């Protein structure tokens, strides 16, 4: 299996705080990979290091066969590595359509009208509110806007940081169905989640992060079979 994204032994430090320790992780083309772990395990730091908004000190990040360690965050976005940040972080004083345009910002001089129309076909709610300020959207609609905005950057890997945060159970279900749908269209997915049950239900493989270290990895079945792990992280008994 060829690896699309290969992270080898990276570290992230904030001063004395060692948030990510010697973490290796990979994603094959077309996979959904999830990173699980408690609060403060280093999940978001890991994503930020891959995106390039936080510097990793050791190791290497290989994307499509190239070492992207020294690349800036915008350059990584242009090459197809796109993150949907935690808490959505849409541009609230801009309209729905302008938010989508911002997603395509790094693809200079490209007419994205058709792509935006495709997004609107998928999400009629967004279409109805295309000229309204994004602030009026509900939490679920904001999440689909954030994902759509990321899709307009033409990613090959989309990284989702706690997308289910603050959504009602029915919306969480719909969200994961959407992630599956995007994945079946050819995108690889790196999913950081606290909702371990849902994440393992949809992922091809998973990693468990504890205090910056990877303590387990494998298929959802493997992870769920590990009793100690199931007890500590997966809510089993």
């Amino acid at each position, binding site marked *: 299996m060829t690896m699309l994204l290969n992270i080898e032994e990276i570290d992230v430090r904030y001063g004395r705080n060692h948030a990510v320790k010697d973490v290796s992780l990979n994603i094959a083309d077309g996979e959904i990979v999830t990173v699980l772990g408690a609060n403060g395990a280093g999940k978001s730091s890991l994503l930020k290091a891959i995106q390039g908004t936080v510097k990793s000190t050791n190791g290497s990040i290989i994307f499509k066969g190239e070492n992207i360690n020294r690349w800036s965050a915008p350059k990584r976005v242009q090459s197809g590595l796109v993150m949907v940040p935690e808490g959505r972080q849409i541009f609230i004083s801009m309209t729905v359509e302008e938010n989508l345009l*911002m997603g395509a910002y790094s693809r200079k001089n490209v007419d994205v009208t058709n792509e935006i129309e495709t997004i609107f076909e998928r999400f009629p709610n967004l279409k109805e509110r295309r000229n309204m300020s994004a602030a009026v959207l509900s939490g679920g609609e904001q999440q689909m806007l954030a994902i759509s905005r990321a899709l307009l950057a033409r990613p090959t890997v989309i990284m989702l940081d706690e997308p289910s945060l603050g959504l009602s159970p029915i919306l969480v279900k719909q969200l994961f169905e959407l992630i599956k749908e995007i994945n079946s269209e050819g995108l690889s997915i790196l999913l950081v989640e606290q909702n371990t049950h849902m994440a393992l239900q949809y992922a091809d493989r998973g990693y468990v992060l504890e205090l910056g270290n990877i303590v387990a990895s494998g298929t959802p079945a493997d992870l769920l079979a590990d009793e100690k792990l199931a007890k500590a992280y997966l809510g089993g008994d």
Partner: protein
Amino acid sequence: MSAYMTGIIIILCLNIIIAYSVFLPAAAGQLNLGAAGFMIIGAYTDAYLSSADEGLGLPILLTIPIAALFTGLVGFLMSFPILRTKGVYMILATFAFAEIVAGIVLNMEIVGGASGFPVTTHAELEVLLPITVGVIVFGFYLISTRFGLSMRSIHDDENVSLLFGVNTHLVKVGAFTIGAFLGGLAGALYGHQFDYIEVQNWGILFSIYVLLYVLIGGTQTPWGPLVGAMFFTFIPEILRALGDATGIELLGELRFAAFGVIIVGMMVLRPEGIMTRTFLELLFRKPMPKSDISLG
């Protein structure tokens, strides 16, 4: 048109230009309390270049653009230290900048120091009006461009803008510089309307007023500075007229107190300013369906 009406329109035009000079950086998230500083630079540069007696006597079609460009250059250079600050600290930094400019010009004998400087070339509304219209069109145009979009995205979230490929530093410097340019333009035009300039015209109160035009008008859309400048120009005059007509002292002599009450009321009732996106939708578009929660 009566001389009174002409006078009001002149003030309105100048207020609109200076409002856009503060609005454009504000649209990119910059709170600028330095309007007075840019206006002083523009006014004095233009006055020195154009005045026949004590200056160089150049034609105003040359001196007004030069003064605006020069102010833009000063703004560009000042943007590097000033843009290191944010929010309240940026207000203080821009205020300090304006005070420094005032202090320097007050001590420059070549432009008359504290006694001010005469401007010998008078220009009527036929100069001021087209420039004002041009500035409004420019403000609307700039906001609609890719550059304008990136300004507004920085206003909302600088980090996410960077993530999607916006050169945030360049856009911030650009917005600040354009603001300085328009401030200089307003200053240069001021001199040709009132034939005399002095630093004391542009104190901290002036900068506060201009920032209020923008905040009360609203920073979300380019309608904001236009409506804000009109609001601040007309309301005191309307109160004066009402005071004269009704004989109510509060509206006449105390109209600035009444005006203050209106401003405080506005801040309480409409903290996003008069012209918000939602308000514009109400004015120009059909009502939208109510939001329901579904991922589609």
